[in-house]
């Protein structure tokens, strides 16, 4: 049964990818890429990667789609050029694909418990993480404790990406969006007439934010953690912005505040590492934070997940603000 679901989802993925290749209307392509992400998330659930599925669903179908849509909103909505040298490209792609398929012949079968990947360090994570780190969710233990350095690096990458987008698009123009709109005589939002949508969204937003907090603080015991929570919290805000306008959203939290929060998250993460060093341990060795190593781990994971969550949230909202502030610029 599981295999049938797996194969069906994979086949759908392939078909969606082909459709993305063929269609010229960018709006349809973006919607298809949202569907593609949702299919991916379902596939990840069938392959036991619940944390990954969570993230893919929130990022791929939510944030990536919204960012792409705001880009075509500010530019053009149709691809005008025909594919360039399609036959030659097809040849290159087929040859590369054939070599890769040849490479898979030596790979262990799907789901083989004796595959090399399951022999090295994974058994230790599975068997001992609960005694060493104390968290039920092994993914959280690895993410924030065993491989805390990696995660720090990823958080810095996200922060840097946020900085680059803001640097490219411009911070001042973003802050002056409201002034520009008023100068152009746009005082009412075009969404104001959709009464039902507005009321339903008003009811939804607190639930989304509450769910994001649950995902943030429940990451030790179930699927969840800072990355997912940050993205879900950000989608709550983006939802609000889509409905009530950028000007209103910027009054809730200004771009300047967001940039401070983003930096604060990275600082919190790095600061926990410094604190552990000052207390006599290694960098990001949470054991020394409290008298009992398990309590120390618990506190350390709580703090760095909070750092990740705030950085991811603020960078995502900041990027979205930057993109949507372009809308009024060209008219």
């Amino acid at each position, binding site marked *: 049964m599981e295999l049938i679901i*797996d194969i069906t989802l*994979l*086949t759908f*993925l*392939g078909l969606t990818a082909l459709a*993305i*290749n063929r269609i010229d209307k*960018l709006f349809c392509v973006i919607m298809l*890429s949202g569907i*593609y992400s949702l299919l*991916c998330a379902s*596939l*990840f659930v069938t392959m*036991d*990667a*619940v944390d990954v599925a969570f*993230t893919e669903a929130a990022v791929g179908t939510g944030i990536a789609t919204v*960012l*792409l849509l705001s*880009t075509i909103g500010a530019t053009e909505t149709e*691809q*005008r*050029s025909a*594919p*360039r*040298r399609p036959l030659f*490209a*097809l040849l290159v*792609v087929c040859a*590369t*694909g054939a070599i*890769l398929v040849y490479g898979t012949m030596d790979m262990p079968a*799907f*789901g*083989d*418990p004796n595959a090399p*990947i*399951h022999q090295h*360090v*994974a058994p230790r*994570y*599975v068997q001992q993480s609960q005694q060493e780190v104390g968290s039920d*969710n*092994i*993914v959280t233990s*690895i*993410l924030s404790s065993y*491989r805390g350095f990696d995660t720090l690096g*990823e958080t810095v*990458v*996200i922060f840097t*990406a946020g900085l*680059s*987008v803001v640097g*490219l*698009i411009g911070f001042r123009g973003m802050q002056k969006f409201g002034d520009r709109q008023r100068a152009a005589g746009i005082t009412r939002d075009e969404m104001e007439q959709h009464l039902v949508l507005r009321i339903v969204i008003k009811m939804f937003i607190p639930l989304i934010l509450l769910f994001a907090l649950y995902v943030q603080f429940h990451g030790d015991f179930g699927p969840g953690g800072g*990355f997912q929570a940050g993205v879900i919290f950000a989608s709550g805000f983006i939802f609000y912005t889509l409905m009530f306008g950028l000007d209103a959203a910027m009054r809730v939290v200004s771009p300047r505040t967001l940039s401070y929060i983003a930096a604060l998250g990275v600082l919190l993460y790095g600061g926990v590492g410094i604190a552990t060093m000052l207390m006599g341990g290694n960098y990001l060795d949470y054991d020394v934070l409290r008298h009992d190593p398990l309590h120390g781990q618990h506190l350390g994971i709580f703090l760095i997940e909070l750092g990740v969550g705030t950085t991811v949230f603020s960078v995502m909202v900041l*990027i979205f603000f930057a*993109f949507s502030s*372009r809308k009024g610029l060209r008219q």
Partner: protein
Amino acid sequence: MNIGAHYNYWVAIFLMMTGFYVVITHGNLIKKLIGLNLFTTSVFILYISLAKVRGGTAPIIAPGIEVYSNPLPHVLILTAIVVGVATTAVGLALALLIYDRYGTLEEEEIRLKDDSL
């Protein structure tokens, strides 16, 4: 040779090659970025397929469960997804700036404008 044993890998390769094809043949910058996303996601699928253990369950410790899927690739991909969307955003921001300067997102037209300068 069992088809079910390698089907996941093959589809991952197929998706990767579709993304590759989109990137090299299409001139529209947004379409290129979406193709790049297809490519990245195929790598995610490959990694998660490798992590799966037959009869295993999600790596959250619960009483009475012995076999878990490998949690390590999950961690790698979980962070990669968020980093992926952040880098896509940088790409889109660059596309927006190119549109401001050239008034088009088609590669050929951008090149023509460059040549005519």
